[in-house]
C-alpha cells in the first residue's frame, strides 16, 4: 500500500486561499511525496510535504498581495452598496425636480392603477378558483345541437337519471329547478328558491353548517315538507340561532320544517332550498328543463366523461334529432369566464393602451430632463464611470419612478375598486369577489418595473452615448438637444394609440344613442309597473284579486289606462312556447313567446293595433279562446297574409287569432322583435307547481298616468293591499327604469371606454404639449436669429409647428390603420354601428387632430413672442 501524506497537511492544502489549479497542485505534491517516501523514507517525505504545503500557502498569499493581483469581480455586497447609492442618488434627483417627478408619478399611477383594477377583476373571474373543494372537477353539463356549437339546452329528467348511475365517470350528479316563494315570517318578501335533487350539495363538496342535507326520502311525493336555508337568510330571519333547525319556515304556500343551514361560503344565489319533488311532468323525455351539475370522478377528464355520457343522451333522445344531439361539459369556472372574457379582453386592451400612452409620455419627459443632464453625465464619464454604470444609474431612476407611480396607482385602484367593480358591465359570480391580494400586488409591481424599463431604457441608452467634449465644452449652457426625429416619433406613437381609444369610445357612444333611439314599439313615458301576488296561492283568488285591483287602480286620479300581463316588454325574463297551426296538422310547431294579458295592457303600453281587435272584456272563460299576434309572428307564419281568423294549437288549447299588433322590443333593446302571442289571461289555464298543485299565475300591472309615474307609486301600493286579500307587492318602478336596466351593459361599456378614451386623450395632449414646448424652449436662440434675419411670423410657425403637425398627421394615419384593424374586437358590443363606421372613427380622428393641434399650437405660439435681442444676449 502506498503511503499517504499526513491528513492535516492535506486539509491545510485543501483550505489554502488564492491557489489556482488546486487539484493539479495536490496531485503533484502527492506524486512527490510518494517518490520521496520510496527514496528517503516516510518521515522525510512527510517533512518535505508539510514544508511544501506551507510554501504553497505563503507564496499564494504573497503573490496575491502583490501590486498586480488578478482583478476580482465586484462582490455582491459591493454591488448592493452601489445599488443603494444609485437609489439614494435617484431619489435626491427626483426631489430636486418635484414638478417633473409629480407629473411622471401621476401619469404612471393612472396607467398602472387602471391596469391593476382590471387585472384584479380578471383575476377574480378567470383565474381564482371557485371556493369549493377541487373546483376543477365540478362541471355543468348541458345538451346541445351539434349544428350550432354555442347552443345549450337543459336536460330531460330521464337522461339525468340515466347519467347519475354512471359512477365510473361521475362521483355525484345533480339537477335542480329554480323558482321563488313568498316568505311570510315578517313583512312578506319574495325569495329565490332552488329545488335540488339529492347530491346537489355534495357536488360542491358543501355540508350544512347545522342540521342535515336532503335525503332520498325527502324527495318522495307526500314526504314531510322540509327546507334548507342559506347562511344569509338564516342570519336575516333567525339571527344566526342554531335552534332554527327544526323550526317551521313560514312560506305563503307551505310551511316546511328547516332541516339544515348552509355555511356562509356557499354563496350561490338561492335563499331557500326545497327537495325536488317531481310530478308527472318530469317523466317526459322531451321536456328538457333540468340543468345538470356534476362532480367528476377524480382523474376523469371531460373527454372521458363525454365518451360515456353522450351515447346515453343520444339513445334517450327523440329519434328525429338523435343524429345532431350533442352534449357540452363545461368546467364550473368556465361558465362565468365565457361571458366575462370578451368584455375583460376589451377593457384590458384599453387600459394597456392607456398605460402605453403614459409610458411614451414619461419617456418624453425623461428625455427632456435627461437632455439637460448631458453635462453631468459627461462629467461622470470623464471621471471614469463606464457606460454600464451610467445606464444602470439612469434605469434605476426610471424604475424608482415607475415603482412610485405604480404604488400610487395600486393604492388608487384599491381605494376605488368597489366603484370600478360596480361600473364594469359583468355580472360577477357571487363566489368571486375582486380583491387586492398578493397576486394583484405582484402584478402591479411587475407592471411598474416593466414601465420603468420601457420608458427609461431609450433615454438611458442615448444619454450614455454622450459626447464628452461638446457637452463639457459648452459650459453646460446648451444641453444636448432632444433629437427632433425622436420627439416627433413619440408624438406620432402617442397620437396613434390615442386614436384607437377615442375611436372605440366614439363607436360606443353612437351605439348607445342608437340603442336609446331604437323604435321600441311601445311608449314607456308615463308608465309605471308593479308586481303584486296574493299570499294565498290559489288560481281563483288570483283571478279575483287582479280584476278587483285593476278596477281600483283605474279609479285613481291621473290614471289613463291600466292593464296587466304575466310579463311586460323589457321586464323580467320570458320563455318560448311551441305552437302549431291547428288547421295544418303537418306543419312543424314553432317557438313563440306567449304572454297572458288582462284588458288594458295594450292601451297602457301604447302598443299599436294593426288589424282586428285587442283582448277585451268579452274574452272570459267559457268564450272561444282568442289571442293577438305581433307583426313578426304574423309575417313568419302567414307570409301570404290572412293571419286573422287562423287557429293555433298551444298545448291542449286551440286559440283563434283575432288581432295583430305592432312589434315590440321585448327581450332587450338590442334584440330584434321576437314572434309574440298575447292571450287572454281570463281564458288561460291555471299555473301548475312542480308537485302538480294548481296555483295562481302572478301578474304585473302596467299603469299609464298623465303625470309623473313615480308619484303614483304609493297610491298603487296602497290599492294593492286594499282589496282585502293580503298580497306581496314588489318592484314598483317606472317602465323607463326597466329600459335603463336593459341598456345598462351597453351604457356601462360606453362609460368605461369613454373614460379610458378621455384619460388617454388627456395624457396624449399633455405629452404633445410638453414635447412641443420643450422643443420651442430649446430653439429660442435659433428663432431669435431667424427673427433677426427677417423671418415672418408665418415662417416661424412653420419652422416650429410644422414638425409637430407632421407628427400628429402621421400619428392619425397610423392610428386609423390600427383602428380599422382593432375595432373588430368590440363588434359584439356595438348596436347598429359597424366596427369600421367611418362617421364614428372620422369624428374621433377629427377631435383628436384638433385637440392635439391646439396642444402643439399653444407652445408654438410662444415662439412668436421671442425677442431676438433677448434670445441672442443669452450667448
Amino acid at each position, binding site marked *: 500500500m502506498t503511503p499517504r501524506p499526513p491528513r492535516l497537511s492535506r486539509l491545510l492544502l485543501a483550505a489554502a486561499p488564492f491557489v489556482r489549479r488546486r487539484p*493539479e497542485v495536490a496531485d503533484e505534491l502527492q*506524486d512527490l511525496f*510518494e517518490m520521496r517516501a520510496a527514496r528517503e523514507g516516510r518521515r522525510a517525505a512527510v517533512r*518535505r510535504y508539510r514544508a511544501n504545503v*506551507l510554501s*504553497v500557502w505563503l*507564496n499564494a498569499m*504573497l503573490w496575491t498581495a502583490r501590486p498586480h493581483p488578478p482583478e476580482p469581480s465586484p462582490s455582491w455586497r459591493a454591488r448592493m452598496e452601489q445599488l443603494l447609492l444609485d437609489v439614494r442618488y435617484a431619489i435626491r434627483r427626483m426631489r430636486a425636480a418635484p414638478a417633473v417627478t409629480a407629473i411622471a408619478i401621476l401619469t404612471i399611477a393612472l396607467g398602472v392603477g387602471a391596469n391593476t383594477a382590471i387585472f384584479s377583476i380578471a383575476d377574480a373571474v378567470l383565474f381564482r378558483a371557485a371556493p369549493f373543494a377541487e373546483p376543477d372537477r365540478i362541471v355543468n353539463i348541458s345538451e346541445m345541437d351539434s349544428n350550432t356549437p354555442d347552443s345549450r339546452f337543459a336536460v330531460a329528467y330521464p337522461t339525468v337519471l340515466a347519467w347519475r348511475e354512471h359512477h365510473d365517470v361521475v362521483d355525484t350528479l345533480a339537477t335542480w329547478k329554480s323558482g321563488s316563494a313568498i316568505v311570510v315570517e315578517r313583512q312578506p318578501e319574495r325569495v329565490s328558491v332552488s329545488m335540488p335533487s339529492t347530491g346537489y350539495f355534495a357536488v360542491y363538496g358543501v355540508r350544512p353548517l347545522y342540521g342535515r342535507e336532503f335525503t332520498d326520502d325527502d324527495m318522495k311525493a307526500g314526504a314531510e315538507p322540509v327546507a334548507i336555508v342559506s347562511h344569509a337568510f338564516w342570519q336575516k330571519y333567525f339571527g344566526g340561532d342554531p335552534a332554527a333547525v327544526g323550526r317551521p319556515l313560514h312560506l305563503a304556500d307551505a310551511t316546511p320544517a328547516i332541516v339544515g343551514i348552509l355555511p356562509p361560503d356557499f354563496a350561490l344565489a338561492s335563499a331557500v332550498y326545497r327537495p325536488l319533488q317531481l310530478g308527472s311532468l318530469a317523466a317526459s323525455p322531451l321536456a328538457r328543463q333540468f340543468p345538470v351539475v356534476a362532480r367528476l370522478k377524480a382523474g376523469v377528464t371531460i373527454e372521458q366523461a363525454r365518451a360515456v355520457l353522450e351515447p346515453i343522451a343520444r339513445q334517450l333522445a327523440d329519434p328525429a334529432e338523435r343524429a345532431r344531439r350533442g352534449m357540452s361539459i363545461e368546467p364550473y369556472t368556465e361558465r362565468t369566464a365565457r361571458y366575462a372574457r370578451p368584455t375583460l379582453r376589451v377593457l384590458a386592451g384599453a387600459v394597456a393602451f392607456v398605460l402605453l400612452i403614459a409610458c411614451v409620455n414619461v419617456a418624453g419627459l425623461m428625455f427632456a430632463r435627461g437632455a439637460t443632464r448631458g453635462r453631468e453625465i459627461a462629467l461622470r464619464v470623464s471621471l471614469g464611470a463606464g457606460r454600464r454604470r451610467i445606464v444602470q444609474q439612469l434605469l434605476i431612476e426610471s424604475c424608482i419612478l415607475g415603482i412610485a407611480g405604480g404604488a400610487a396607482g395600486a393604492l388608487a385602484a384599491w381605494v376605488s375598486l368597489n366603484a370600478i367593480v360596480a361600473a364594469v358591465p359583468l355580472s360577477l359570480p357571487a363566489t368571486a369577489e375582486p380583491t387586492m391580494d398578493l397576486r394583484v400586488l405582484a402584478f402591479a409591481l411587475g407592471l411598474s418595473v416593466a414601465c420603468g424599463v420601457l420608458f427609461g431604457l431609450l433615454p438611458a441608452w442615448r444619454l450614455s452615448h454622450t459626447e464628452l467634449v461638446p457637452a463639457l465644452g459648452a459650459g453646460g449652457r446648451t444641453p444636448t438637444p432632444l433629437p427632433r426625429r425622436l420627439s416627433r416619433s413619440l408624438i406620432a406613437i402617442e397620437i396613434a394609440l390615442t386614436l384607437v381609444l377615442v375611436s372605440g369610445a366614439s363607436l360606443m357612444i353612437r351605439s348607445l344613442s342608437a340603442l336609446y333611439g331604437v323604435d321600441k314599439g311601445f311608449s314607456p313615458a308615463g308608465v309605471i309597473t308593479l308586481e303584486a301576488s296574493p299570499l294565498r296561492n290559489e288560481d281563483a283568488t288570483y283571478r279575483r284579486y287582479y280584476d278587483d285591483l285593476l278596477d281600483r287602480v283605474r279609479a285613481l286620479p291621473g290614471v289613463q289606462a291600466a292593464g296587466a300581463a304575466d310579463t311586460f316588454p323589457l321586464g323580467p325574463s320570458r320563455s318560448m312556447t311551441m305552437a302549431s297551426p291547428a288547421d295544418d296538422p303537418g306543419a312543424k310547431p314553432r317557438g313563440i313567446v306567449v304572454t297572458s294579458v288582462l284588458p288594458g295592457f295594450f292601451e297602457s303600453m301604447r302598443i299599436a293595433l294593426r288589424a282586428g281587435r285587442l283582448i277585451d272584456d268579452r274574452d272570459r272563460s267559457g268564450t272561444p279562446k282568442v289571442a293577438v299576434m305581433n307583426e313578426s309572428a304574423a309575417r313568419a307564419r302567414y307570409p301570404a297574409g290572412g293571419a286573422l281568423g287562423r287557429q293555433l294549437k298551444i298545448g291542449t288549447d286551440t286559440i283563434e287569432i283575432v288581432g295583430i299588433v305592432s312589434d315590440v322590443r321585448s327581450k332587450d333593446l338590442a334584440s330584434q322583435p321576437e314572434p309574440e302571442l298575447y292571450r287572454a289571461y281570463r281564458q288561460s289555464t291555471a299555473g301548475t307547481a312542480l308537485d302538480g298543485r294548481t296555483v295562481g299565475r302572478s301578474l304585473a300591472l302596467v299603469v299609464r298616468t298623465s303625470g309623473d309615474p313615480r308619484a303614483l307609486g304609493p297610491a298603487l301600493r296602497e290599492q294593492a293591499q286594499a282589496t282585502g286579500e293580503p298580497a306581496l307587492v314588489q318592484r314598483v318602478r317606472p317602465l323607463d327604469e326597466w329600459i335603463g336596466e336593459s341598456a345598462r351593459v351597453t351604457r356601462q361599456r360606453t362609460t368605461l371606454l369613454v373614460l379610458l378614451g378621455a384619460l388617454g386623450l388627456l395624457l396624449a395632449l399633455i405629452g404633445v404639449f410638453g414635447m412641443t414646448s420643450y422643443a420651442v424652449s430649446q430653439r429660442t436662440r435659433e428663432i431669435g436669429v431667424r427673427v433677426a434675419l427677417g423671418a415672418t411670423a408665418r415662417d416661424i410657425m412653420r419652422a416650429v409647428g410644422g414638425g409637430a403637425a407632421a407628427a400628429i398627421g402621421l400619428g392619425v394615419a397610423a392610428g386609423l390603420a390600427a383602428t380599422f384593424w382593432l375595432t373588430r374586437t368590440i363588434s359584439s358590443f356595438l348596436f347598429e354601428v359597424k366596427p369600421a363606421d367611418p362617421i364614428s372613427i372620422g369624428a374621433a380622428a377629427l377631435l383628436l387632430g384638433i385637440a392635439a393641434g391646439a396642444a402643439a399650437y399653444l407652445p408654438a405660439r410662444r415662439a412668436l413672442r421671442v425677442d431676438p435681442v433677448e434670445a441672442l444676449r443669452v450667448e
Partner: protein
Amino acid sequence: VKSERLGEFEELSLLAICALADAAYGVAVQQHLEKLTFRPVSMGAVYASLERLERKGFVRSALTASTGVRGGKRKRIFRATATGRDVLRDVRRLREAMWRSIEQPKGGRA
C-alpha cells in the same frame, strides 16, 4: 515595464523548463532545480514562479493526456514561449557583457 523583468528564481525556473524540454511539469522543475542548485526548493515557490512566468507570457502550459505511468495522472507541462527564450537570451547577453567588462577593464578598447 517592470513586470516584464525576470526575477532570479524565475530565470532559473525558465532555464529548467528549457532544459526539461517536453517533461517540464511542476515536480520535475523542482527536482531539476534542487539537483543543480544543491539547495532545497519549495514547491510553493516553484508554483508561484511558474504562474508568474505564464502571466508574463514567457511560458505556456497545457495538460497532457493521462500517461498510465505512476497513477497515470494528467500533468500540466510548461513550455517556454519565443518571448521567454528571447528574454533568457537578453539576460545571458547582459551577463556576458557584464563579465567581459570585468575581465577587460575600462580603456581596454584603446
